């Protein structure tokens, strides 16, 4: 299993080379990889009947409990057969369909096939998530093609946004679920499902992930939009495989999570609504691929409802419909691609008489469409019979579900007929389309898938073997339902016949229905809702940036200061404690110095001349040094004197080259008063903090120890002992900072000197500015 997945991913790297060497036909060889996987999966079927389950584990990080766990139970095997079988057919088909892009698309399709195989066999929530997102990435790259067409880019981004949003929510759900269960292994979680606590939240998040991936209402518009991708991609990712991932997840987890109160109602409601609304939309599409896409959305809704119903027969019906849909929808897409390729159009208003020119292809399409419509003896019929049976015996809610299902199926029959008519019929008034004959190998993959739908129908035992073990997760009803073409003259048979007849009636009266619908008010458009959401998010982002990022440093700083005032400032108001007042003799010494310092500081504020401002700052520094002396810190005072003098020298050195006066302040008081408030407020705040901090001291200082041990260090000056002995490493750090600063200053000055040889424009600009500056003086 692991090996096969690895082969997919590794060989994908050489596919472009292969295609460059052999041309697009080289993809026929690439198709062997999923074909071999399919063959290997077939060999596992007998084991399934015996109840043996193949498992593999690769430990990634034992400490983090991250492992690649794989487990091939009935559901996984069913999905794996579908994914690898359709994958092989689609890759073979691509060999004829694709042109210059074959290398890239082929490689991505192979990566996707590997990721999908990993997704359906993963037995670990994180493993599953990794493969889940890998399929999303493949989908993005395949829809976007080369990123040349705007429509492709839009569709790719839409698909990625919607499914990745769901994926992230799902991951959150996985984490909640894994933590609640105490294990991330799916099989263990399902064996002993957790209850209560965060489990409902986890279930809701996981459902959201599944709904986005499987294009359920109201997340569905990305799937029809994704139809801009090449047809093989649509057939594989957006019909047979990737969009099934969400449904698969529901199928996988329902046996464990169906006890969550809202799980069944939500899955049933969303699924059935999607079934009906999307089928209704399919009836009015004129692009054959879009018609099929809405059909896919509709069928996915059916699958969501069936798997979410959590009963034995519904699960059986779901598993059968999963297989049936994969086969017939992939076939129909491949057929549409051939029509598009050979006739140059897939618009059903332009195509006419294609069936006459391509009888074999239309026969294949009829096989698939018949399965889609649920006609006997096709696989779709088996599935629909089981679906009716699942809800026939229940009470009123079940019967409501049955009615919804029947409505959905009627519409399904109608759009199946519309597809066949649109693609192949001869339309009066429309000139017969020119069609070139396709190569046999081109039609063959579609034919194989179409015939498979018939064979599975004729041989119900195969479907029983594949589907029943999954259904056995649920208690079996007294009369165990077995898939069979002839169940006797049952009420469901009558219902089936009625639905088919009604479907054809709807199809025949489509023109009249269209006329009626145009008079009805339009349904809310999910596509527009998506666009509006994306635009809204962008606008909020730009708006928030505009309001928070004004680009003005003073504004930012004011904001920070105001936050300081509001937050810690308020806290301080409640926490202020006062100590006893200082002795008057101390105050008598401090006061003149403090007055000097504050006066000089105010002088700095008022100064218009640079030099006088600098000198005032020097006075502040010397005054502070005096306060240090009063406080009993002669070392500090000494350092302060030295540093202050040095600073003055440096500043004057710089000032020598700069204009004497400051750039005049032109700002109005209206702009300045918030700054005054912020600055004065913070001053007050810090002063209060100083008072509080002084009074808050309750424990004896740690520095007594320093004083007692300075003798040992051979020092008398305790501060010196701390700096060069007790905390010598800190001092080393300080010296390093100074060294770095010196290097920085030197390089800044050097770069400035080099500016003499910098481009002339910079110099001219600077000279111009300097002139205007001097003029201003």
């Amino acid at each position, binding site marked *: 299993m692991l090996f096969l997945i690895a082969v997919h991913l590794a060989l994908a790297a050489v596919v472009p080379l292969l295609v460059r060497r052999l041309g697009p036909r080289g993809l026929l060889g690439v198709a062997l990889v999923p074909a071999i996987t399919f063959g290997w999966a077939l060999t596992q079927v007998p084991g399934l009947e015996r109840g043996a389950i193949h498992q593999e584990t690769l430990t990634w990080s034992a400490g983090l409990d991250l492992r690649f766990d794989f487990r091939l139970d009935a559901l996984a095997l069913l999905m794996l057969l579908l994914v690898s079988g359709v994958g092989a057919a689609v890759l073979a088909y691509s060999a004829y369909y694709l042109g210059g892009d074959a290398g890239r698309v082929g490689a991505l399709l192979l990566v996707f096939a590997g990721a999908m195989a990993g997704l359906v066999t993963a037995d670990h929530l994180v493993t599953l998530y990794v493969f889940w997102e890998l399929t999303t990435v493949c989908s993005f790259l395949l829809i976007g093609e080369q990123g040349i067409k705007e429509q492709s880019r839009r569709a790719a981004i839409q698909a990625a946004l919607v499914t990745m949003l769901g994926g992230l929510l799902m991951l959150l759900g996985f984490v909640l679920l894994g933590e609640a269960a105490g294990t991330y292994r799916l099989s263990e979680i399902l064996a002993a499902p957790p209850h209560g606590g965060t489990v409902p939240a986890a279930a809701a998040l996981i459902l959201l992930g599944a709904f986005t991936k499987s294009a359920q209402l109201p997340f569905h518009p990305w799937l029809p939009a994704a139809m801009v991708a090449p047809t093989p991609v649509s057939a594989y990712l957006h019909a047979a495989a990737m969009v099934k991932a969400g449904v698969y997840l529901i199928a996988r987890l329902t046996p464990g999570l169906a006890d969550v109160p809202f799980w069944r109602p939500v899955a049933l409601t969303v699924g059935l609504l999607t079934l009906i609304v999307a089928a209704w939309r399919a009836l009015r599409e004129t692009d054959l691929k879009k018609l099929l896409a809405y059909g896919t959305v509709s069928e996915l809704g059916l699958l969501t409802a069936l798997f979410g119903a959590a009963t034995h027969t519904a699960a059986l019906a779901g598993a059968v419909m999963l297989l049936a849909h994969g086969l017939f929808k992939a076939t129909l897409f491949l057929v549409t691609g051939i029509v598009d390729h050979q006739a140059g159009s897939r618009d059903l208003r332009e195509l006419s008489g294609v069936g006459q020119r391509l009888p074999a292809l239309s026969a294949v399409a009829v096989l698939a469409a018949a399965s889609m419509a649920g006609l006997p003896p096709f696989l779709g019929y088996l599935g629909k019979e089981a679906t009716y049976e699942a809800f026939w015996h229940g009470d009123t809610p079940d019967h409501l579900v049955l009615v919804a299902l029947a409505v959905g199926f009627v519409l399904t029959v109608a759009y199946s007929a519309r597809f066949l008519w649109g693609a192949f019929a001869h339309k009066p008034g429309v000139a017969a389309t020119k069609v070139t004959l396709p190569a046999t190998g081109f039609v063959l993959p579609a034919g194989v898938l179409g015939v498979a739908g018939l064979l599975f129908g004729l041989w119900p035992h195969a479907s029983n073997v594949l589907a029943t073990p999954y259904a056995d997760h649920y208690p079996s009803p007294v009369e165990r339902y077995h898939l069979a073409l002839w169940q006797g003259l049952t009420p469901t048979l009558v219902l089936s016949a009625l639905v088919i007849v009604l479907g054809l009636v709807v199809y025949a009266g489509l023109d009249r229905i269209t006329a009626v619908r145009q008079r009805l008010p339009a349904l809310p458009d999910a596509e527009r809702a998506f666009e509006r959401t994306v635009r809204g998010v962008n606008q909020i982002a730009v708006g928030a940036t505009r309001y928070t990022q004004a680009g003005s440093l003073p504004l930012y700083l004011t904001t920070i200061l105001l936050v300081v005032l509001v937050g810690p400032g308020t806290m301080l108001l409640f926490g202020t404690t006062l100590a006893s007042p200082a002795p008057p003799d101390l105050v008598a010494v401090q006061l003149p110095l403090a007055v000097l310092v504050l006066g000089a500081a105010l002088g700095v504020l008022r100064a218009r001349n640079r030099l006088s401002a600098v000198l005032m700052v020097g006075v502040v520094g010397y005054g502070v040094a005096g306060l240090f002396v009063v406080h009993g810190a002669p070392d500090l005072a000494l350092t302060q004197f030295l540093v202050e003098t040095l600073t003055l020298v440096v500043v004057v050195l710089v000032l020598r080259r700069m204009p004497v006066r400051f*750039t005049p302040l032109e700002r109005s008081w209206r702009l300045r008063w918030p700054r005054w408030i912020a600055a004065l407020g913070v001053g007050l705040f810090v002063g209060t903090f100083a008072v509080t901090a002084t009074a808050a001291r309750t424990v004896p200082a740690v520095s007594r120890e320093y004083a007692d041990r300075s003798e040992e260090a051979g020092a008398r000056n305790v501060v010196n002992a701390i700096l060069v002995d007790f905390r010598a490493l800190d001092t080393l750090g300080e010296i390093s900072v100074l060294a770095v600063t010196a290097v920085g200053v030197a390089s800044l000055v050097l770069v400035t000197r080099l*500016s003499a040889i910098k481009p002339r424009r910079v110099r001219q600009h600077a000279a111009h500015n300097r002139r*205007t500056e001097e003029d201003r003086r």
Partner: protein
Amino acid sequence: MSYLDLTMAVAVAGLYAVGFLLLLERSLMRVVLGFIVLGHGTNLLLLVAGGPPGAVPILGLAEPAAMADPLPQAMALTAIVITFGLTTFLLALAYRSWTFTGHDEVRDDIEDRRLESAEHRRQRERELA
């Protein structure tokens, strides 16, 4: 035992207010000066918060019990030196700004302004449409 050292607290408060006012200016030179003043305020704050004034912390001149706490002093000493380093670096930056652009003003971020004008343009386009 600690005092309510109101004088020092007022000095610290004044230095902080003036420092931030200067820091909020657009002239780089004033910003540098504001930074120096803030540095002075912080050093004083360290000392005030560290305990009451006392005797010089030199053995032999006073009993350890009567000494001013030496640890805040060591911290403030480090802070003085670091402030000096930063000041010279800022000055070098201001000087460089002056030689390169001919002014020493902190200009608004052009990218942010452009974002704003782009939004305005889009709004106008919407109104026209």
